[in-house]
């Protein structure tokens, strides 16, 4: 409402965040939080066993992680921030005001982590004579990595269940949200498992000239995965138990989208099967590494990445209709504003709109402005999650009846529980319906402020100014 409206009308705004965020989670779980303790362990084992070849393998594994985390990992992390600022500035602006000190602490830990990984990687060979110290650096780095995840998880948990914050409004109450510990208890072993599966995939490549090293490294990696996997499963159950009940009802659409919501059971089975694949391959690697060719060794990391990506999608979706539970809806509009917006309308109070008053001649334009303000955080006109598909699924091919669509807009939150209530006046619902039914004959895609700029209507009359 108060920011120029960035909008991607084909890919949809959610996908921008999703691609960047899922890449980031894959990199930082598998290559930072999970990989640093694994590399440190391998270095320590190599030290104990005087296994120079294993030491070199650990170093090469670390180098791969170093290169990727300091480029792709770091930039997608910033990228989440940049993309969220574009797609939902009201939400991220609010979160930063609540959690500023958490993010500040996170930042200090990031700086230490970057310094630690540079020291750990760049002094590996130089510190050959002081391995004990070097392993300690690895341990410190592992702890720092984990702390960065621990801090951000508090914020993610808050978005799903702010606990006592709506009443208490303090930083402590925000931090003490009920989902925090369960989510952390899930993510920590999950990251460890992801790193182990990455190691399983890379060992055949990194140890291709030394079959005996390959076997030793596969055993260690497989054993690592087996050790952490039960904890990951336990963590997942603990997390599921902590999710607010009403959110679980969103799970089928969260997992499979509306089109395939009836496949929920099948998809859950697929996810369980993927977990089984990780278990079996890791078990084989730990007990019978000779039976694990490269093509098999690579399946657990693929399964891990698929599971991670799925988890993030589900976590983001089941929170709807909220972006900050019980405070702000996914459209960026605070729940507290709804009574006023239902009375006066969204257009009366929006900063960036070309229409303030709906008249007989500007209905479709007014509807388009309402669409931009109320719907585009999640929907496009004819692209990903396009409203044309939604209407088609409900009412068949166009033309659609304007009054029917209007009635649906006012009631859909009763049927689709992940939709927020319509944040505007009755008249605006009508205008939006007219815009929507005009879409099949509309000539172009909707452009966002990043290319079309903004339009300003005269400001609304101040109260008591006789308006």
């Amino acid at each position: 409402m108060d920011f120029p409206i960035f909008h991607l009308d084909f890919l949809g705004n959610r996908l921008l965040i999703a691609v960047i965020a899922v890449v980031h989670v894959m990199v930082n779980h598998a290559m930072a939080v999970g990989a640093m303790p694994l590399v440190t362990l391998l270095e320590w084992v190599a030290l104990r066993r005087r296994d120079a070849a294993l030491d070199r393998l650990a170093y090469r594994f670390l180098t791969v992680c170093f290169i990727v985390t300091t480029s792709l990992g770091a930039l997608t992390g910033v990228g989440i921030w940049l993309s969220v600022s574009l797609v939902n500035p009201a939400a991220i602006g609010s979160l930063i005001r609540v959690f500023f000190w958490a993010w500040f602490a996170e930042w200090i830990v990031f700086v230490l982590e970057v310094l630690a990984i540079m020291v750990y990687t760049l002094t590996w060979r130089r510190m050959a004579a002081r391995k004990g110290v070097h392993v300690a650096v690895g341990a410190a780095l592992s702890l720092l990595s984990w702390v960065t995840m621990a801090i951000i998880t508090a914020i993610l948990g808050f978005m799903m269940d702010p606990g006592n914050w709506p009443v208490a409004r303090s930083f402590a109450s925000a931090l003490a949200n009920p989902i925090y510990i369960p989510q952390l208890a899930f993510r920590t072993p999950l990251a460890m498992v992801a790193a182990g599966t990455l190691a399983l995939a890379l060992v055949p490549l990194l140890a291709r000239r030394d079959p005996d090293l390959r076997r030793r490294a596969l055993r260690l990696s497989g054993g690592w995965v087996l050790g952490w996997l039960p904890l990951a499963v336990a963590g997942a159950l603990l997390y599921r138990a902590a999710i607010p009940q009403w959110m679980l009802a969103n799970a089928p659409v969260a997992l499979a989208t509306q089109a395939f919501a009836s496949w929920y059971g099948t998809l859950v089975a697929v996810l369980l099967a993927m977990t089984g694949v990780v278990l079996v391959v890791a078990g084989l690697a730990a007990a019978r590494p000779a039976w694990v060719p490269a093509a098999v060794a690579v399946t657990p990391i693929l399964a891990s990445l698929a599971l991670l990506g799925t988890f993030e999608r589900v976590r983001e979706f089941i929170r709807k209709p909220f972006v900050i539970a019980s405070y702000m809806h996914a459209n960026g509009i605070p729940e507290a504003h709804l009574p006023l917006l239902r009375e006066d309308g969204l257009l009366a109070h929006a900063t960036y709109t070309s229409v303030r008053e709906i008249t007989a001649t500007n209905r479709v334009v007014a509807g388009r402005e309402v669409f931009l303000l109320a719907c585009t955080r999640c929907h496009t006109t004819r692209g990903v999650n396009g409203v044309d598909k939604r209407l088609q699924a409900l009412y068949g091919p166009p033309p659609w009846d304007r009054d029917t669509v209007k009635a649906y807009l006012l009631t859909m939150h009763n049927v689709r529980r992940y939709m927020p209530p319509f944040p505007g006046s009755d008249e605006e619902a009508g205008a939006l319906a007219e815009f929507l039914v005009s879409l099949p004959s509309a000539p172009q895609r909707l452009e966002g402020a990043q290319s079309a700029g903004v339009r300003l209507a005269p400001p609304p009359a101040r109260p008591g100014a006789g308006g």
Partner: protein
Amino acid sequence: MPTLPIPHDLPLPLPLAPATAAVAIVVLFLLHIVFVNLMVGGAVLTVALELAGRRDRALDGLAREVAATVTVNKSLAVVLGVGPLLVMNVLYTLYFYSANALTGSAWIMIVPLVTAAFLASYAHKYSWERLADAKGLHLAIGALAALLFLAVPLIFLANVNLMLFPERWPTVRGFLTAVALPNVLPRYLHFLLASLALTGLFLAGYFGRAGYPVEERLPGMDRTSLRRRFLSLAFGATAAQLVVGPLVLFTLPASGMSWPMLANVLAGLLLAIGALWVLWGEVVTPATALGGRFAAIAVLLGGTAAFMVSGRHIYREGALAGHRALVAAATEDLAGEVLAAQMRAAAGTPRLKEEAAAAPGERVFKSVCMGCHARTTRLVGPPVVEIASLYRGNPDGLVAWVKKPGRRRPDYPEMPPVVLSEAQYRAVADYLLETP
């Protein structure tokens, strides 16, 4: 047509005092920009030296040594950027995010561009030997990294400039129009020269220190001549600032100017002149070792940067002061209206306007039921005529169903319970059963 957007601010308090935030943003930004300068300057110098190194092998070796510093400095540059970005987001929420949205395509390109720059830097550094016989390709990789590092600062500059001028927001159509606004391009030039100057200073210290193994890494070169070479670069770039600096000052829009701001800039200028004086000494007769003169240059140039960043902050606050007052007033007004509407809703008397006056039952039907129930045809649920015949003379039965729908038709989706007031239930039931 109005041209000044006056958005509402977020109704959440700032997490730190404005004075603390001001100190934080100046200090943290300084740390960040120093490493950005070293990253950009280093990348450019690496390419320049490697190009020159095609005729003088010693310079190729020097280029490689410089490249090694870039990959370290870049990581520090990016991680140190988080702090000032955080304070920016908090202090200037509306302004910063508005500028981001208006330049959104370019803004989000920061992610792939910087990632590519980093990966190219790694590739350039680690393939030096392997591509020794393919210098053209190797140079191209280095040039790619340098070009990316040169392009990205423009995206930041366009944003931090645009954020200060809300009256310009309605005139912007994408990143290119934002870059063309005053005074982005002069500032960019100012930044480039600063990068070269600071990198020269840094490398003079890096190569010129006693602990650097010059015989092993750069055979044929000595510390003193390396120091002199790089301090000459620092001198030349800083001297050029005597032209570009005033250009920046004179193209700066007047809205944020103030005497305190100018005082800071002037102080920075004086320190820069002092730095030039000492630098000249080093260029003409370099010291035999890294010592007092080098420290003096570092302090003077550091002081220049500090005053410029402080001056910039004062300018920023000055440019936004008026608009912030308007925003504060609008925010307070809105908060009052939100509260009043909430109270009316809680009391059951919202001031709703509906499109057309209609009897209560018809109104409920049109705003609640019509989305799924059409008159004579199946839509999502069965048509009204069918419902009417099923419940003829039985409005209570219809109301009971609406309150708690069962599941009678397996080939239809399940109807959700509908929540209304008792009067509304009765009105809509009567309305529906009126249907012939």
